[in-house]
C-alpha cells in the first residue's frame, strides 16, 4: 500500500501534515547536517567550484608573489586564516567537540589579557583557545599567544608560531601587544602545566611571580581568566623520562598510553570532550601605579589562579565523562 492509498483510506486525516521543522540548532558546538530547504534556491554547483578554484589560485598567487602583509611580530593573518585555522577547526569542532561559554566576557575592542590553565603535554589548549575566539567571538578576534623561548629556538616551529601571531613571553612584547589593542593569551604555568602527570590533572600549578599581571597593570588592560577542560586527557602522561628529556634538551619526555609505543600514531590526541569558559574580566585600569608593587601583583595573580581553579571544578561537574558526547 502506497502513502497515497493509505492516506485516502483514512477519512478525516487526508490533509494531515507533519509540523514544519525548526531552524537547525548547533549541538555541542557541532553544526548539524545541513538541511536542504525547499524555499531557498540552491546555488549552481558549477559556480561554487569556479569560485573555490579562483579563490585558491588567487591565494597561491598572493603567496608566491609575497603580496601579503606581516605585522611587526611576524603575524601573517592571510596564512593563518587560509591555512592554519581551517585545519585546526577540524580538531576543534569534530575531534574535541569544543563548547564555549562566557564569550560575552571578552571585550569587542581594545586589549585584553587571557590567562588560562595549561595542560596536555603538547600545548594544543593555547591553539584551541585562539580558534574559539576567532570562531565564536562576534568580532572574530585574533588571539596573540605568548610562548616559551623553547618554541622560538626550534626551527619550523618558531616560524609557524610567529606566523600564527605568537611571540616570546616577555614583558616588552606583552605590553606592546596589549597597548596596541590586541588580545594576548598567556599560560603562566608554562611547562609545569603541560608537563604534569595525568594523576595531577586539573590541579593548577604555581603561577610564577606573576609577570603577566604586572604587564597588564602597566598598560591598564583587563585580565580575563579562562578555564579549559579537556586538554588534560588528550595525551595522558603516565611517566616522565627525565634523563632522556635532559639528553634531548626537552623540558620533559612524556610516556602516554600511545606514545612512544605507537610511534607517530601516538601523536594523535585522544578525542576528549572540551569545555572552554571565559570568566568575567578583572579591570586593572585603577591599579596602574601598583605595577611594580610585588604584593599587589602577587595577590592579583593569586585571585586569577583561584578563579580559574574554581571554574575548572565547576566545568568538571558539567562533564562527568571525559570522552562523552
Amino acid at each position, binding site marked *: 500500500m502506497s502513502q497515497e492509498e493509505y492516506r485516502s483510506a483514512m477519512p478525516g486525516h487526508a490533509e494531515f501534515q507533519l509540523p514544519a521543522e525548526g531552524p537547525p540548532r548547533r549541538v555541542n558546538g557541532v553544526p548539524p547536517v545541513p538541511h536542504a530547504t525547499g524555499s531557498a534556491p540552491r546555488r549552481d554547483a558549477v559556480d561554487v567550484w*569556479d569560485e573555490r578554484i579562483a579563490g585558491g589560485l588567487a591565494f597561491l598567487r598572493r603567496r608566491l608573489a609575497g603580496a601579503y602583509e606581516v605585522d611587526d611580530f611576524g603575524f601573517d593573518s592571510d596564512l593563518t586564516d587560509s591555512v592554519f585555522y581551517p585545519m585546526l577547526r577540524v580538531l576543534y569542532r569534530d575531534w574535541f567537540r569544543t563548547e564555549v561559554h562566557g564569550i560575552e566576557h571578552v571585550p569587542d575592542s581594545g586589549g585584553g589579557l587571557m590567562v588560562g590553565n595549561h595542560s596536555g603535554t603538547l600545548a594544543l589548549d593555547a591553539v584551541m583557545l585562539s580558534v574559539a575566539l576567532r570562531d565564536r567571538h562576534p568580532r572574530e578576534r585574533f588571539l596573540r599567544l605568548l610562548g616559551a623561548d623553547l618554541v622560538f629556538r626550534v626551527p619550523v616551529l618558531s616560524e609557524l608560531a610567529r606566523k600564527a601571531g605568537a611571540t616570546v613571553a616577555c614583558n616588552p612584547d606583552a605590553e606592546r601587544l596589549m597597548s596596541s589593542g590586541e588580545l594576548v593569551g598567556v599560560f603562566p604555568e608554562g611547562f609545569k602545566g603541560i608537563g604534569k602527570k595525568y594523576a595531577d590533572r586539573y590541579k593548577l600549578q604555581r603561577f610564577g611571580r606573576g609577570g603577566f599581571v604586572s604587564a597588564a597593570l602597566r598598560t591598564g588592560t583587563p585580565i580575563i581568566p579562562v578555564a579549559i577542560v579537556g586538554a588534560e586527557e588528550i595525551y595522558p602522561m603516565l611517566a616522565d623520562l627525565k634523563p632522556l628529556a635532559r639528553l634531548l634538551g626537552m623540558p620533559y619526555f612524556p610516556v602516554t598510553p600511545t606514545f612512544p609505543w605507537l610511534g607517530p600514531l601516538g601523536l594523535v590526541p585522544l578525542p576528549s570532550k572540551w569545555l572552554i569558559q571565559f570568566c568575567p574580566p578583572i579591570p586593572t585600569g585603577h591599579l596602574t601605579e601598583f605595577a611594580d608593587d610585588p604584593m599587589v601583583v602577587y595577590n592579583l595573580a593569586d585571585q586569577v589562579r583561584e578563579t580559574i581553579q574554581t571554574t575548572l571544578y565547576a566545568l568538571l561537574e558539567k562533564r562527568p565523562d571525559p570522552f562523552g558526547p
Partner: protein
Amino acid sequence: MVTSHPAAPPRVVVVTGVSRFLGARVAARLAADERVERVVGLDPLEPPPTLAGLLGGVELVRADARAASAAIAELGAEAVVHLAVTGAPDPQHGGRAAMKEQNVIGTMQLIAAAQAAPRLRKLVVRSSTAAYGASFRDPAVFTEDTEPRAVPRGAFARDILDIEGYVRGFRRRRPEVIATVLRFAPLISSTADTSLTRYFAQPLVPTVWGRDARLQFVHVDDALEVLHRSVVADHPGTFNVAGAGVLTLSQAVRRAGRIALPLLEGTLSATAAVARHAGVGQIGLDQLDLFVHGRVVDTTRLVREFGFAPRTTAEAFQDFITGHANGSSLTADRLAAAERAILDGIRKVRASVGGEHA
C-alpha cells in the same frame, strides 16, 4: 670668543668616510646647504672616480684617524659626522683586521680628537641596529633602551658595541656637546651596493630552513635626510632609523621575484665560508644571525624627535626591486598571467565536460 647661537647650524663640519657611498653623499649634501660654511672630508683613501664628482664643494683631507685628530682642532670644527664605519670586511683592503682597525681604533682616535676640540658643539655617529645583537629570547621589537642579551658573535655587531661605548664615554666627558647616535637598519635603494643588496640581487637566494626572519630596511635617501637633519638641527640622543613595517625574508625574496634556496641552519657557517673563499658572496656571521633571528626596531622616538618618518620597509624594498628587475624569474606580472591562464584552462575544460553531459 664669539659663539654662535646654539640652535644655528654648525659652520664647519668634518665628515669622515667620504670615500664611501654614504659619506660622500652626506658631505655633498652638507656642502650644498648654504647655512654650512665649510665641509671637510676626512678619509685615508682617495674617493673613487664615481664619487669624486659629488665632492665638488668638499675640502678633502687625506689622513688616517691618527693624523685627523690634529686636523679636527686646527680646522675649528663645530660638528663631526663619523661615518667611517664598515659593515663587512673588504678582502682588497686588509680584510677583518683592517675593518676592526677602522671601526674600533679609528672611532677611538676620532672621539679622542673630538673631545679635545674646543669649538665642537655636535657629534653625529653612524651606528647600526646590529647593536641589539641576536638571540631567541629577544623581544620582537627593539626600542632604543633594549640591552643586547649577549655579546653578538658577528664582527660588525661587536664593533658597533665598542663604537657606542666610546660615544657613551664622550657624552660623560663633554656633556655640553650634542651627541647623536643613529642606529640604521640595513640601507637599501635602487642603486645602493651593499652585501645585503648583492645577496637579494642573486637569482637564487639562499635562506634558512625552518626560519623566516623579520627584516627591516631604510631607504638611502631617508638615511641621508636623517643624517643631514641631525647635523643642521639639534637632536641629542640615540635613535633607531628604519622604515616602518616588516618584510619576512621569504616574502622579500618572493617580492623580488627570486627563488629561495633553504639551507640547514647547521651548515650555514660552512656554506658562507666556502662562498667567501670562492669569492661568490660576502655573507658573514652578522648576516647569518640576521637571517636566523631577524631584527625589528621601534622608530617612534625618531619620528617624534625629527618630525620625519622614513618611507616604509616595503616601499624602500620596492625601490630596490625596480632597480634590480633583470635577475627576477617569478615576477608578480608573470604569476598573475599564469593564474589567469590556469583559471581559463580549467573553465574551458569544465565547460566542455559539462557540455557533453548536457
